[in-house]
């Protein structure tokens, strides 16, 4: 659709600009300000250049947290994307079941994040939780508060439980938007179910799946509340991800300079990753669908 060229449209955008200044630009500038200064007391700081950046980039604990974060995000993406698509394909397409399934699916998304943590904290406990007790009954020695592996698995399962519905809902919306004529043509050609999926459904879902992948990547990379409630980042540092590390640095130890420097690095990492994902998927689509 051609748009009317008119610079006066900025007046319509102005309220957003003002609000975003208050809620994003000013805070972000504060962070930048801190990241290059050593603040001894309020109003008394001196310029230290890139010292905090250098210090934070050589911090062993940060490297650990970053590794865990990348591994975690990759793991949940690899589970959630295929699972979400599979669920979307299996969902009913008509009848009363559609509404019921959609409402049930969306339920985990509407639960406050710390309550998600609480639910799993209870559910996975060996003594009072159904899930933990069931695993124990199978003869496995499972305890997420003591074993790093168990804690890790529990956090991944919780994340899958919490966010797979988002991927499923998006994929489902994409599937519903495919006109019936495509399927009829495939039937006439005698296409197999796999061919229908590979050459009709998957390309048509590309747009929504891009959004799903980006949202899931960003949010899993910022995960804080759920593991904080479930494991508190432990045992040891086993489930300490970047946000936890940052919060500990900023609020726990009050290391403003390094925390601010790290904030900027953190933000940039997410931006760069998202940009790369976006470009890769766009490029893929241009190559495949035309």
């Amino acid at each position, binding site marked *: 659709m051609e748009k009317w060229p008119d610079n006066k449209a900025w007046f319509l955008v102005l309220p957003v600009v003002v609000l975003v200044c208050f809620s994003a630009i000013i805070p972000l500038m504060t962070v930048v300000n801190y990241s290059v200064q050593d603040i001894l007391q309020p109003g008394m700081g001196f310029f230290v250049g890139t010292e905090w950046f250098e210090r934070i980039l050589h911090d062993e604990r940060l490297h650990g947290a970053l590794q865990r974060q990348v591994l975690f995000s990759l793991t949940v993406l690899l589970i959630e994307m295929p699972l979400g698509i599979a669920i979307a394909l299996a969902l009913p397409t008509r009848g009363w079941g559609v509404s019921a399934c959609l409402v049930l699916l969306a339920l985990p998304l509407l639960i406050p994040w710390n309550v998600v943590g609480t639910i799993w904290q209870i559910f996975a406990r060996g003594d009072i939780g159904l899930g933990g007790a069931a695993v124990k009954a199978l003869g496995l020695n499972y305890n997420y508060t003591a074993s790093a592996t168990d804690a890790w698995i529990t956090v991944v399962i919780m994340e899958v439980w919490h966010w797979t519905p988002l991927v499923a809902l998006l994929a489902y919306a994409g599937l519903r938007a495919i006109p019936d004529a495509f399927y009829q043509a495939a039937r006439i050609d005698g296409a197999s179910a796999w061919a229908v999926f590979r050459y009709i459904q998957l390309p048509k879902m590309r747009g929504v799946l891009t959004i799903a992948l980006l949202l899931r990547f960003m949010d899993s990379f910022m995960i804080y509340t759920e593991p904080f409630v479930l494991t508190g980042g432990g045992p040891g540092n086993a489930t300490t991800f970047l946000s936890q590390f940052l919060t500990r640095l900023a609020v726990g130890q009050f290391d403003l300079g390094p925390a601010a420097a790290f904030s900027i690095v953190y933000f940039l990492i*997410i931006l760069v990753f998202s940009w790369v994902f976006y470009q890769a998927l766009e490029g893929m689509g241009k190559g495949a669908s035309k």
Partner: protein
Amino acid sequence: MKVRKRTLALGLYFVFLLLPLYWLVNMSLKPNEEILGELTLLPQNVTFENYVTIFTNADWYTGYLNSITYVSLNTIISLAVALPAAYAFSRYSFVGDKHFFFWLLTNRMAPPAVFLLPFFQLYSTFGLIDTHIAVALAHCLFNVPLAVWILEGFMRGVPREIDETAYIDGYSFPLFFATVFLPLIRAGIGVTAFFCFMFSWVELLLARTLTTVEAKPIAATMTRTVSAAGIDWGLLAAAGVLTIVPGALVIWFVRNYMAKGFALGRV
């Protein structure tokens, strides 16, 4: 046969989805002795005591009221600023529009943990700490970009001829916007409101940092079940169940548009 297998797999997934929730509800109806005693699939001595405590104790129910207050405020603010902006993006091309649009989305990518400290200082300066409006404004960080994106998607679906006809008929812009255009994108507004509600409702990190007593969200109140005597599991579970109820209610209203909203209006 193949279809059966598919349904079975879907059924299994829903069991996985619902089991933790079932367990939460189950626990909320038990007295603590039973929770800590034997595992029982159904409460043996059904009690509503945990719920009664929440509804009669002001410490508890004000938490819910606080949450609902700032969530509603946030939804109203987000919609009010996002509607004209989304209209501008969907109808006009202007200097820097694409860059600004993309830059808005980057705000959605900002980890709340990054904004923790600057928000605290900024709102302290304005004396806004521990007010509902502070949390509502802070949540605009991610809700305004989201609202603009979703609304823009819905507005693009409205043919531009409608605008042109209305202007020829002598409608002024505000009159056209309020009486013709807004009713056309009712569904979009509903979905956007739902998403603002949702993301503001589930967020805790910022909400907890910016409040102490007066505007404390329910999710933060829940931490008080931990005391010297251990954790009051039944009460914690009941409070958890009650935080799910508002969400479940609003899902029901937008169930048919939800998926489109998740796709930012771009299906």
